[in-house]
């Protein structure tokens, strides 16, 4: 079922074009949003979360038009949003914080039960009485996710929720997101291609304010098929190359004759998609 449909969204901040003619469709399940820093991911997510309006374009979210107050309210009633750097009321306990957010979401009946439910869903039952300032970074992110989960939203927008998490926390987070994505639409912005490969059914790639790819993760990986190879040396002219753990070099680019081609990953496809020149610039 389609929950979000955007046509030709554009937004400018002064002379800077943040988004340009962005069209996309979101369905049930987890959709990853990949893109380099400054690509416009957060701006797009804020538009979808009704935090800011687009300058131009058509947008329907959960059947409502967020361009008017009633539509915006309708969207917000069914939206779960975890912003980038969400911020927390440090002197609140986890329970108090979620209770506070629940009130702001106008959850009145069974509010405390709902808070307990989301705390359980993110595995923080035993941390409910702890002040947020005493929680680890991973736990705080889970509190943020729990806040987004309040009132069982139909659409969840998560802006880089795995940033700053250690590997174990990241794994647990992916597990959570995978569970959450069952039966609802989740848009997950991330820098981690592993996040996409493990939990996302679809992926969007945004670069320089434009959608460069929309499809399944496998298809994104497929963009690099036949152009990823390993060898004993760094290839001249490769879009990207790095030495792997076994001493061989992982090269992306045109393979030399007789090169040992390997199955591309999403990361390879993503790198292929992003401007090679900018990659070379950042590598230097």
């Amino acid at each position: 079922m389609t929950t979000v449909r955007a046509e030709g969204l554009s937004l400018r901040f002064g002379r800077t074009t943040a988004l340009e003619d962005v069209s996309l469709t979101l369905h049930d399940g987890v959709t990853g949003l990949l893109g380099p820093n400054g690509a416009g991911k957060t701006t797009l997510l804020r538009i979808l979360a009704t935090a800011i309006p687009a300058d131009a374009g058509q947008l329907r979210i959960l059947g409502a038009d967020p361009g008017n107050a009633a539509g915006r309210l309708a969207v917000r009633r069914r939206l779960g949003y975890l912003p980038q750097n969400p911020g927390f009321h440090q002197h609140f306990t986890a329970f108090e914080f979620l209770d506070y957010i629940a009130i702001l979401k106008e959850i009145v009946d069974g509010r405390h039960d709902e808070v307990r439910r989301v705390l359980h869903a993110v595995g923080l039952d035993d941390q409910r009485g702890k002040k947020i300032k005493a929680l680890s970074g991973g736990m705080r992110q889970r509190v943020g996710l729990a806040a987004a989960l309040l009132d069982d939203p139909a659409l969840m927008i998560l802006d880089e929720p795995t940033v700053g998490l250690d590997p174990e926390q990241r794994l647990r987070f992916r597990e959570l997101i995978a569970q959450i994505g069952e039966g609802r639409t989740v848009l997950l912005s991330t820098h981690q291609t592993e996040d996409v490969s493990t939990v996302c059914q679809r992926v969007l790639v945004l670069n320089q304010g434009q959608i460069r790819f929309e499809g399944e993760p496998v298809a994104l990986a497929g963009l690099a098929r036949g152009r990823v190879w390993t060898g004993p040396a760094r290839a001249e002219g490769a879009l990207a190359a790095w030495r792997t753990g076994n001493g061989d070099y992982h090269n992306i680019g045109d393979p030399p004759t007789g090169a040992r081609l390997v199955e591309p990953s999403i990361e390879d496809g993503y790198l292929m998609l992003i401007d090679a020149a900018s990659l070379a610039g950042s590598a230097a």
Partner: protein
Amino acid sequence: MTAVLAEAPGTAAVDAAPSRRALLALARVELVRMLRHPVTIGATVLLAGSWVSAWFLIETSRYPVLQDLDRDSAISMMILLGGAALIVGNLAVLRAHRDGTTGLSQVLILPEYTRTLAHLLAMLPLALVGAVLIVARMAVLALYAPAAGQPNPYELAIGPATVLLLGALGVLLGRLTRSAVVAPLALLVLLAGLVVLEPLTNRGTALWLAPQGGPALEMPTPVALIARPAGAHLGYLLGLAGLLAVTAVLRAGARGVRVAVAGAVALAVTVALGTAQLSPPSSDVAAARTAVMNHPSQHQTCQQIEHVTYCAFTGFSSWVPAWNTVVQAVVDQVPATARSAQLTVRQRIAILNFDRGVRPEQRLAIWRADDAAAGTPGAIGIATRWGDGREAAYLAAQVAYRLVTGQTGEEPAGQQSLDGATACGGVGVLVLWLAGQASTGAESRLRLLAKDARDPRGGISFDENERFPRVYVPAAEFGVAMQALARSRTDIAARVQQSWATLTAPGTTAAQAAQILGVPAPATSTAC
């Protein structure tokens, strides 16, 4: 682009009105957080602590005048609890900004103006806490202290109203600026206003426009004479709080008829009652004040204890036992033969603001005439303050002077010097010793009196009604009496009883009195 096969159903009818229950739930959460905030707890403890400590540190607090204490309590409440409401209200509004949660909170359903309304509603229980504190203070004092008079319910409500007002100001400031420094600065400005407004307005009616209201009368008076426009001031403060509240919700995005009506009502109340409170007291009140000042005997109830009649204004009778303790302490040291005089102690008020155009000698003559008409000629005047030892010293000295000299206080008005009588030699020493031993701490009180209200003649003067000098004792006699007070009371009392006739004889000098009492003679003598 992916084809759209089916779209999630939209919400056909969105209830745009914010949930009243969510509003109340948020107000409850905010209230709990405000009450638990260290600033609120600290202010409440300081407020209650200042009231409790006043009982131990300020002697007049043990003889409170409730119709004045209600106003004083309101001012301390405004400074502490109101100040706390200003700061915690402001911090509550700025919480999302300070903690960086605006990214999330801006897309949550409850509108900003409803959140602002919740912050404002949370101030109501905070004001209720203030009301409970102030009522508890009054009840405790009324029940357990010899309290005079009765509090004015409007004055009692002014303290909590200032809590509301400053709380609303804190919320509004949070809506106007995102800096958490502004609210404490506003509080500092308010405190500075408390200090500078009275002199700036020359204690005039314009002071009523400030939250603390107009100045108190210079002395406590019976309730009926106060005539402070407390009710109008209370309404003015509530109207002002309403205006600030409406401005805050407007700033937060509220619009509509109800907001406009609330704003109009608040403005009307503020202007109407703000103007009404500036009106001077009615001519009836002015006439009543003059009547009570000129003819206190017609507005008092009297009671006799042994040879002394005590007359007090309505509400002040609870102080009679304390007056009697002082008077009897003097009488007890006087030989039985000198106790025959019938004494009357009469409460009087002499307030300069009420007494314009009346010269001091006229005032004294008016009182003597009233005493004569009441059948209590030469009554000893006592003011409407009690407890700090000053009034006790004044009363004891006047009683002592009457008993030592045998004078009745019925001298013709023309013979009454504005400087009062001078007690020289043995008489002066005896008057001072009798006054000094009449109450605990009187010796140090006499020293303070001599230091504080230094008479240009060098000695010590005892006033009637804190305004009219009645008995003056020169410095040499003061020195002898102070030394006698430092000695054993029993020993000196025995010497006084034994040598009463000598000590009270007109020709006895201070040096001779010192010799009789067994203390060093003064270095200089006074020519009387």
